[in-house]
Structure formats: structure tokens, C-alpha cells
């Protein structure tokens, strides 16, 4: 299987090696086309975003105004903060020039003359690597005004890195734009959408690093070639990051539609000690977890995973063996979303706090089975009621972990019974008691 993003070519991160392997031919070709032609090819290729939502890239580009009356911007999202995701870093390190070539083509397609690559602050070493690659391309005349001569066109663009500073929420596209503008990373209410009203109020497109890195190969080899790889409705390859309880954790580039079990057992070497799998989160920690005893036949593409009751997200596969305490895992996940909530909307700010609190109560041995219902209830009340998708990202793991692993969670809580108690004000009041704590009155015993 040919690799699109991380081919096995030694020293591909060196510009000369990249050029010797056909680098910048696609940019040359694309820059001779009309922007609409480039968008059309990407549309037909069915390339979908690799940042989590899986939106069709060509379609997204086509939302940008055709007639330019204001500056257009391209933001490349390299925030990579979703727990379980560690793929974009591989691109900065191993194939930065293909990312840069993709940027040139995308910028031309949407007529953006300024491009910001947003990279999480912790990736300082990778920022340095990518900056060195950008500098080299400036020197070679692949970027900036010199592009006009090099590629014999009227178009040119400048590319800058914006370094984040430790806030998961800045991966959300509108928070990312606020962060680039030098503000706190609060997500914006949509609409207006970025293609109309993005950076400094101008038309803006945001794409993930891996998404953009696909583009040169699509232009070079044609959309038919790309569309024929992997799952038809979600074609191409994905960089699957496998972590947790596997023998060979790492990033594996494989066609979409590859069996999840194939990735875990064949590529990532299976589970240490040949233990059974209890749970797999297939797309980064925001995605609904799957039961280990129901992994058979699940394919890793957007549609197949939706059918299986989860989502492809960033393709970060977290594997948990049979000895894993899922309560501890869920507490940790909930702590993360509580910590990272920007606090703008009440359901997310309060809800993430409540969920963590209740889960910690259960962890301390004080929880009851009612708390499990309460958690699912709180989660359902966050879902769909917030400015950005962090609310859903916080709700899903709680809701699905508890409903899908109810058997396991019941082990961590005390059983509860509902006992009717006479009350002077209301005719009847229902009070719940934990079974272990009370002696039931004779009359209420079944």
C-alpha cells in the first residue's frame, strides 16, 4: 500500500530529497490552474478533514467568496491537543515540505495571501523544525513574492507560525482565530462562519495539518486515484495513532476502512500479556468508547464508525486491557474537559464540574447507582446546548462509558432502593437510601 502522508523515503524532511521525489511539481501544476479548478479537483477527490469533524475539504473551500474584496486567510490547525492524538507532529518532523506544498496549493485555491500555522506551544522543538523548513522554502523562492517568478504566476503567499501556549480549546477553529488575533481563546458563536467572517472579520478557512498534507498528492496523481483508496465515502489514508495497552504503540498510516482489530493486533502488535481488551476509544478521548467484546468487524472510517456508535475523530486509538479501571479513566477524562472548558457557557462550565465531582464521589466509594443515572442525565443536558463542540466532547465519554459499561460501573457504586416515606406536606415523598446504610423497616421489605 502506497503511503500518502508519511512515505518510507529516508531523509524526506530534507528539501532536496523532497524535490528529487517529485516535490513542488503539484504546486507548479496547481498554480497554473484557476482556483476554482483546484477546488473542483479536491471536491471530486472526496477528501475529508482530518481534524475531527470530517467535513469535505473541497466543499469547505468553495464557501470562500469567489470575488475577493477583503484579504483572505488560511489557518492550518496544528494544535493537536486531543488526548490520544499525536499524528500531526509526525508530519512536522518527517514530511514538512509536503505540508508546505499543500499550503501553497490551498492558499491559491482560496486566494489567501497570508497563512498561519497554529502549533501548540509544547511542540517548541517541532515549531523550530517547521520554521527551518519554511525559511528554506523562502530561500528557494517557493514562498513569498519570489514565488511569482519561481512558479511563473501572479499569486504569492506568506506563511507564518503562530505558537499556542497551552489551551486545548484553541484547537477549536474559532477559538484558534481569537488566539491568533492575540486574544483569549474563547470560541465564537456561529454563524457567522469563518468563510464570511473569520480572522479580523475577513474570509478564512481552517484546515487540519494532515488534511492539507494530502493535497499535493491529489493534484499530482489526480482525484480518481485518491478517491479509489480506502473507504469510498471517506477515501485516502489516515494516520492512526495507537496508544495505551498495545505492544507497539505508534502512528500507522493505513487506508480508511481498515479493520480496527487489524490495526490493534497486526500493526500495533496486540495487547501485552495477550490480555483481553475491555475498551477502545477509537478517535481521541472525545469520542464514544467501544466495548472490547464488540470490536469484531468495525472499520475505521467516518461512516462505519458512526454505524458502530462512535466517531473517527482524529484517528487516535486508545486501547485498554481487561484489567483497566474504567472509573479511573473516566475520572481522568472528565477532569480534562472540566479543566479545559473555557467557561463561556453555563451547561459546559457547570456540567463538566458536576460530572467530575460526581465521578470523584464514586471514586471515593461514596457513589450510588443513582449517581450513574445522574451522570448520564447531566451529560445529556450539556450535549448540543453549547457554543462549541467541547460540550459534546465532554458529554460523550461520560454518557457512553456509563451506558456501555454499566455492568462495570455498577461494581463501583452502592446499590440504591427507592422507599416511599409518609410526609405531612406531600402525600408521599420518595427518598432514596443506600442499601448498605440502612435497615429496611419490616413493612417495606418485599
Amino acid at each position: 500500500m502506497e503511503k500518502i502522508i508519511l512515505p518510507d523515503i529516508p531523509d524526506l524532511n530534507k528539501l532536496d530529497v523532497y524535490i528529487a521525489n517529485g516535490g513542488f511539481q503539484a504546486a507548479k501544476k496547481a498554480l497554473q490552474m484557476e482556483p476554482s479548478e483546484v477546488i473542483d479537483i479536491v471536491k471530486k477527490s472526496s477528501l475529508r478533514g482530518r481534524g475531527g469533524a470530517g467535513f469535505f475539504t473541497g466543499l469547505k473551500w468553495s464557501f470562500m467568496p469567489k470575488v475577493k474584496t477583503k484579504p483572505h486567510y488560511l489557518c492550518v490547525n496544528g494544535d493537536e491537543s486531543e488526548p490520544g492524538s499525536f499524528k500531526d507532529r509526525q508530519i512536522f518532523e518527517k514530511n514538512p515540505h509536503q505540508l508546505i506544498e499543500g499550503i501553497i496549493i490551498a492558499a491559491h485555491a482560496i486566494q489567501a495571501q497570508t497563512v498561519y500555522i497554529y502549533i501548540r506551544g509544547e511542540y517548541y522543538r517541532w515549531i523550530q523544525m517547521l520554521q527551518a523548513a519554511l525559511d528554506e522554502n523562502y530561500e528557494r523562492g517557493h514562498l513569498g513574492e519570489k514565488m511569482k517568478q519561481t512558479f511563473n504566476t501572479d499569486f504569492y503567499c506568506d506563511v507564518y507560525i503562530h505558537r499556542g501556549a497551552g489551551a486545548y480549546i484553541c484547537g477549536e477553529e474559532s477559538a484558534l482565530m481569537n488566539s491568533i488575533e492575540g486574544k483569549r481563546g474563547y470560541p465564537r458563536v456561529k454563524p457567522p462562519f469563518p468563510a464570511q467572517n473569520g480572522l479580523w472579520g475577513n474570509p478564512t478557512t481552517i484546515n487540519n495539518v494532515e488534511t492539507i498534507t494530502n493535497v499535493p498528492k491529489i493534484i499530482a496523481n489526480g482525484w480518481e486515484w485518491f478517491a479509489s483508496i480506502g473507504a469510498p465515502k471517506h477515501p485516502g489514508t489516515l494516520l492512526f495513532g495507537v496508544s495505551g495497552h498495545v505492544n507497539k504503540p505508534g502512528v500507522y498510516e493505513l487506508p480508511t476502512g481498515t479493520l480496527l482489530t487489524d490495526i490493534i493486533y497486526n500493526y500495533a502488535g496486540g495487547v501485552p500479556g495477550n490480555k483481553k481488551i475491555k475498551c477502545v476509544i477509537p478517535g481521541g478521548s472525545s469520542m464514544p468508547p467501544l466495548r472490547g467484546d464488540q470490536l469484531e468487524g468495525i472499520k475505521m472510517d467516518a461512516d462505519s464508525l458512526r454505524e458502530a456508535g462512535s466517531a473517527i475523530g482524529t484517528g487516535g486509538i486508545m486501547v485498554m486491557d481487561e484489567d483497566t479501571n474504567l472509573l479511573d479513566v473516566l475520572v481522568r477524562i472528565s477532569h480534562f474537559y472540566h479543566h479545559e472548558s473555557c467557561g463561556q457557557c453555563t451547561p459546559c462550565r457547570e456540567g463538566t464540574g458536576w460530572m467530575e465531582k460526581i465521578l470523584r464521589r464514586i471514586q471515593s466509594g461514596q457513589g450510588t447507582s443513582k449517581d450513574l443515572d445522574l451522570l448520564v442525565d447531566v451529560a445529556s443536558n450539556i450535549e448540543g446546548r453549547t457554543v462549541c463542540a467541547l460540550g459534546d466532547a465532554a458529554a460523550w465519554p461520560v454518557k457512553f462509558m456509563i451506558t456501555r459499561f454499566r455492568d462495570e460501573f455498577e461494581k463501583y457504586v452502592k446499590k440504591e432502593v427507592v422507599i416511599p416515606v409518609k410526609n405531612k406536606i406531600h402525600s408521599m415523598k420518595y427518598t432514596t437510601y443506600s442499601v448498605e446504610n440502612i435497615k429496611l423497616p419490616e413493612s417495606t421489605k418485599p
Partner: protein
Amino acid sequence: MAFQFTEENLKRIEKARQKYPTSLAAVMDACYIGQEQNGFISDEVVEEIARVLEIPKTDVLGVVTFYTMFHTKKMGKYHIQVCTNVSCMLRGGYEIFDAVKEKLKIDNMEVTSDGKFSLEEVECMGACGGAPMIAVNSDYYENMTKEKVLEILDSLQ
């Protein structure tokens, strides 16, 4: 004496400013540079950034307090960050965090009395394939064990 950027750093800030149509957008770069020069972002650093970028002090403060990588108190010469998010936790992230705590005799976000080390429990650093991992200042150390981490701490001078 009030904090002042060095000539060299003023040039770096000016270069950062050139990347954007507004000077406010250069505030994060300026904060990094200020933090690097001063060790942390004090009130005086905030004032100096506001002065150099010609933006209100509150705008600088808002950014400094929002992002976790900007420190408003002095951290150690070696800032040890231990990831305890899920992928690291599954492979012993908390054992490593506890081992570092015990070795340095400090808690989360504290600094050793000699100012050499500080410790922070961090969220996923994007290195889950190399879990468990730690970072010392900007350098990542992956596939850690308790022993390896303690060795690294010993080697830091």
C-alpha cells in the same frame, strides 16, 4: 529596576509584529520572549509588553492568565512536566508523577528551595505513542520508566 526588553529581544518582538496586521496579535510571542528573559511574567513584564506593543495592560494580562504555559511566578531552572492523561496514565504516568514528587519533595506547581526544579502535572502533550512521557522545559522524553526519569533528574545540573 523596572523590567526592560534587551535590544535583541525588542528586535524579535518587532519581527513577530510584522507577521500580523495588528500589534495585539504579537502579544503571545511577546509573552514568550518576556518569560524567557525574566524567567516568569511579572507585573513589570506585563507593563513593558503593553508599552512596547502599544496595547492596554489588561489585554496582556488577559492572555497571560488564560494560557497555562505563561507563568506568573518563577518556576525552576528545569520545569518538569509529567503527563498523566489517559494514554500516559494507562502506562504508568501517575507512578512517574509520584516518583518525581517524592524525589524533589515538592508538589504540583511548586519549586524546589534551590530554585533548580519545578513540577507540573500536565494534560496530553501529543506524545501518547511514547507514553509515559515527561518534558523538561521544551524537550520531550518518551517511553519513560521510574528509573529512567530519576536518572534524567540526576543528570540535570
